[in-house]
Protein backbone atom coordinates (compact mmCIF):
# COMPACT_ATOMS: atom_id res chain seq x y z
CA UNK A 1 0.00 0.00 0.00
CA UNK A 2 1.74 3.15 -1.22
CA UNK A 3 1.78 6.03 1.18
CA UNK A 4 1.85 9.70 0.30
CA UNK A 5 4.34 10.47 -2.44
CA UNK A 6 5.70 13.90 -3.29
CA UNK A 7 7.79 15.10 -6.18
CA UNK A 8 10.34 16.43 -6.67
CA UNK A 9 12.41 15.77 -3.57
CA UNK A 10 14.53 18.88 -3.97
CA UNK A 11 14.18 21.98 -6.08
CA UNK A 12 16.26 25.09 -6.59
CA UNK A 13 14.62 28.17 -8.10
CA UNK A 14 15.48 31.82 -8.62
CA UNK A 15 13.55 34.74 -7.15
CA UNK A 16 10.57 35.68 -9.30
CA UNK A 17 10.20 32.24 -10.84
CA UNK A 18 7.22 29.93 -10.47
CA UNK A 19 7.22 26.41 -9.07
CA UNK A 20 4.84 23.44 -9.06
CA UNK A 21 4.99 20.70 -6.44
CA UNK A 22 3.09 17.45 -6.76
CA UNK A 23 1.49 15.03 -4.33
CA UNK A 24 -0.23 11.67 -4.61
CA UNK A 25 -2.31 10.76 -1.58
CA UNK A 26 -2.39 7.48 0.29
CA UNK A 27 -4.75 4.98 -1.27
CA UNK A 28 -8.29 5.49 0.05
CA UNK A 29 -7.77 9.10 1.08
CA UNK A 30 -9.78 11.89 -0.52
CA UNK A 31 -8.42 15.00 1.19
CA UNK A 32 -5.06 16.65 0.63
CA UNK A 33 -3.52 19.35 2.82
CA UNK A 34 -0.35 21.35 2.18
CA UNK A 35 2.05 22.77 4.74
CA UNK A 36 5.14 24.94 4.71
CA UNK A 37 7.80 24.01 7.25
CA UNK A 38 10.70 26.36 7.83
CA UNK A 39 13.88 24.85 9.26
CA UNK A 40 13.43 23.99 12.94
CA UNK A 41 9.80 25.14 12.98
CA UNK A 42 6.40 23.53 12.97
CA UNK A 43 4.37 23.08 9.79
CA UNK A 44 2.24 26.05 8.75
CA UNK A 45 -1.08 25.19 7.10
CA UNK A 46 -1.37 26.52 3.54
CA UNK A 47 -4.64 25.01 2.31
CA UNK A 48 -6.74 21.89 2.06
CA UNK A 49 -8.43 20.32 -0.96
CA UNK A 50 -11.43 18.04 -1.04
CA UNK A 51 -13.59 17.14 -4.04
CA UNK A 52 -11.32 19.23 -6.24
CA UNK A 53 -12.07 22.43 -4.33
CA UNK A 54 -10.08 24.46 -1.85
CA UNK A 55 -11.96 24.03 1.42
CA UNK A 56 -9.79 25.83 3.94
CA UNK A 57 -6.90 28.22 3.64
CA UNK A 58 -4.25 29.40 6.03
CA UNK A 59 -2.63 32.81 6.18
CA UNK A 60 -0.76 32.62 2.87
CA UNK A 61 -0.85 35.12 0.00
CA UNK A 62 -2.56 34.48 -3.33
CA UNK A 63 0.84 33.62 -4.82
CA UNK A 64 0.16 30.21 -3.32
CA UNK A 65 -2.44 28.28 -5.25
CA UNK A 66 -3.36 24.69 -5.71
CA UNK A 67 -5.36 22.13 -7.52
CA UNK A 68 -6.80 18.72 -6.86
CA UNK A 69 -7.46 16.26 -9.66
CA UNK A 70 -10.24 13.67 -9.99
CA UNK A 71 -7.82 10.95 -8.83
CA UNK A 72 -7.29 12.99 -5.60
CA UNK A 73 -3.70 13.91 -6.43
CA UNK A 74 -2.80 17.53 -5.90
CA UNK A 75 -0.45 20.30 -6.95
CA UNK A 76 0.85 23.31 -5.10
CA UNK A 77 1.87 26.29 -7.22
CA UNK A 78 3.87 29.23 -5.98
CA UNK A 79 4.30 32.29 -8.21
CA UNK A 80 6.78 35.17 -7.99
CA UNK A 81 9.05 33.27 -5.63
CA UNK A 82 10.65 35.13 -2.75
CA UNK A 83 13.72 34.16 -0.75
CA UNK A 84 11.39 33.62 2.21
CA UNK A 85 9.57 30.86 0.34
CA UNK A 86 12.56 28.59 0.90
CA UNK A 87 11.26 25.77 3.08
CA UNK A 88 10.20 22.15 3.23
CA UNK A 89 6.76 21.76 1.68
CA UNK A 90 4.77 18.90 3.13
CA UNK A 91 1.76 17.25 1.62
CA UNK A 92 -0.54 15.21 3.83
CA UNK A 93 -3.57 13.14 2.94
CA UNK A 94 -6.48 12.04 5.07
CA UNK A 95 -10.18 11.36 5.03
CA UNK A 96 -12.54 14.31 5.23
CA UNK A 97 -13.11 15.56 8.76
CA UNK A 98 -11.05 16.78 11.68
CA UNK A 99 -11.02 13.30 13.25
CA UNK A 100 -8.94 11.73 10.49
CA UNK A 101 -5.21 11.93 11.17
CA UNK A 102 -2.79 13.20 8.56
CA UNK A 103 -0.48 10.90 6.61
CA UNK A 104 2.52 12.88 5.43
CA UNK A 105 4.82 12.59 2.47
CA UNK A 106 8.57 13.07 2.71
CA UNK A 107 8.27 16.64 1.52
CA UNK A 108 9.84 18.79 -1.17
CA UNK A 109 12.79 20.94 -0.16
CA UNK A 110 12.51 24.23 -2.06
CA UNK A 111 15.46 26.59 -2.13
CA UNK A 112 15.00 30.05 -3.63
CA UNK A 113 18.19 31.91 -4.55
Amino acid at each position, binding site marked *: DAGVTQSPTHLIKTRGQQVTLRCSPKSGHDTV*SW*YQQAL*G*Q*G*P*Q*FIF*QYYEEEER*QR*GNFPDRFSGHQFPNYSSELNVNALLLGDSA*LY*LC*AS*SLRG*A*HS*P*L*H*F*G*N*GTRLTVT
Partner: protein
Amino acid sequence: AQTVTQSQPEMSVQEAETVTLSCTYDTSESDYYLFWYKQPPSRQMILVIRQEAYKQQNATENRFSVNFQKAAKSFSLKISDSQLGDAAMYFCAYNKLVFGAGTILRVKS
Protein backbone atom coordinates in the same frame (compact mmCIF):
# COMPACT_ATOMS: atom_id res chain seq x y z
CA ALA B 1 -7.89 31.96 16.01
CA GLN B 2 -6.57 28.76 17.48
CA THR B 3 -3.01 28.57 18.79
CA VAL B 4 -0.75 25.75 19.93
CA THR B 5 2.22 26.31 22.23
CA GLN B 6 5.04 23.90 22.99
CA SER B 7 7.17 25.53 25.65
CA GLN B 8 10.02 22.99 25.64
CA PRO B 9 12.31 23.47 22.62
CA GLU B 10 14.38 20.47 23.64
CA MET B 11 14.16 17.57 26.10
CA SER B 12 16.48 14.71 26.99
CA VAL B 13 15.68 11.32 28.49
CA GLN B 14 17.71 8.30 29.46
CA GLU B 15 16.87 5.11 27.63
CA ALA B 16 14.16 3.10 29.46
CA GLU B 17 13.01 6.12 31.47
CA THR B 18 9.87 8.23 31.14
CA VAL B 19 9.57 11.71 29.67
CA THR B 20 6.66 14.13 29.32
CA LEU B 21 6.34 16.69 26.54
CA SER B 22 4.09 19.68 27.16
CA CYS B 23 1.53 21.31 24.92
CA THR B 24 -1.05 23.99 25.56
CA TYR B 25 -3.59 25.32 23.11
CA ASP B 26 -6.24 27.93 22.82
CA THR B 27 -9.62 27.60 21.11
CA SER B 28 -13.19 28.72 21.55
CA GLU B 29 -14.50 25.49 20.04
CA SER B 30 -15.88 22.73 22.23
CA ASP B 31 -15.42 19.85 19.81
CA TYR B 32 -12.03 19.26 18.24
CA TYR B 33 -9.19 16.78 17.93
CA LEU B 34 -5.66 16.98 19.23
CA PHE B 35 -2.74 15.06 17.82
CA TRP B 36 0.88 14.33 18.54
CA TYR B 37 3.09 13.74 15.51
CA LYS B 38 6.70 12.56 15.42
CA GLN B 39 9.22 13.72 12.82
CA PRO B 40 12.42 11.65 12.89
CA PRO B 41 15.60 12.98 11.29
CA SER B 42 14.59 11.27 8.02
CA ARG B 43 11.81 13.89 8.12
CA GLN B 44 8.61 11.94 7.35
CA MET B 45 6.06 12.95 9.93
CA ILE B 46 4.01 10.14 11.50
CA LEU B 47 1.07 10.07 13.88
CA VAL B 48 1.82 9.14 17.48
CA ILE B 49 -1.54 9.53 19.17
CA ARG B 50 -4.93 11.23 18.82
CA GLN B 51 -7.35 12.62 21.41
CA GLU B 52 -10.98 13.55 20.87
CA ALA B 53 -11.90 16.60 22.95
CA TYR B 54 -15.32 15.31 23.96
CA LYS B 55 -13.83 12.12 25.42
CA GLN B 56 -12.81 12.30 29.09
CA GLN B 57 -10.57 9.25 28.86
CA ASN B 58 -6.96 9.91 28.01
CA ALA B 59 -5.74 8.20 24.83
CA THR B 60 -3.08 5.50 25.03
CA GLU B 61 -1.03 3.80 22.33
CA ASN B 62 1.41 1.26 23.72
CA ARG B 63 4.21 3.26 25.43
CA PHE B 64 2.62 6.58 24.51
CA SER B 65 -0.15 8.21 26.53
CA VAL B 66 -1.58 11.68 26.92
CA ASN B 67 -2.73 13.78 29.84
CA PHE B 68 -5.63 15.78 28.41
CA GLN B 69 -6.94 18.57 30.61
CA LYS B 70 -9.71 20.25 28.62
CA ALA B 71 -10.45 23.04 31.07
CA ALA B 72 -6.80 23.94 31.30
CA LYS B 73 -6.36 23.46 27.52
CA SER B 74 -3.39 21.23 28.13
CA PHE B 75 -2.38 18.14 26.16
CA SER B 76 0.89 16.57 27.27
CA LEU B 77 2.50 13.44 25.84
CA LYS B 78 4.09 10.84 28.10
CA ILE B 79 6.58 8.39 26.64
CA SER B 80 7.32 5.42 28.88
CA ASP B 81 10.30 3.08 28.60
CA SER B 82 11.99 5.45 26.15
CA GLN B 83 13.87 3.87 23.26
CA LEU B 84 16.61 5.20 20.99
CA GLY B 85 14.11 5.15 18.14
CA ASP B 86 11.95 7.69 19.98
CA ALA B 87 14.51 10.40 19.26
CA ALA B 88 12.77 12.90 16.98
CA MET B 89 11.01 16.24 16.78
CA TYR B 90 7.53 16.00 18.31
CA PHE B 91 4.69 18.28 17.25
CA CYS B 92 1.40 18.90 18.97
CA ALA B 93 -1.42 19.75 16.57
CA TYR B 94 -4.96 21.10 16.78
CA ASN B 95 -7.18 19.44 14.17
CA LYS B 96 -5.33 19.59 10.85
CA LEU B 97 -4.78 23.31 11.02
CA VAL B 98 -2.40 24.41 13.73
CA PHE B 99 0.90 22.89 14.79
CA GLY B 100 3.17 23.85 17.64
CA ALA B 101 6.81 24.81 17.11
CA GLY B 102 7.95 21.35 18.19
CA THR B 103 10.07 19.75 20.88
CA ILE B 104 13.31 17.96 20.03
CA LEU B 105 13.56 14.77 22.06
CA ARG B 106 17.03 13.31 22.58
CA VAL B 107 17.38 9.80 24.00
CA LYS B 108 20.62 8.90 25.78
CA SER B 109 21.93 5.35 25.90
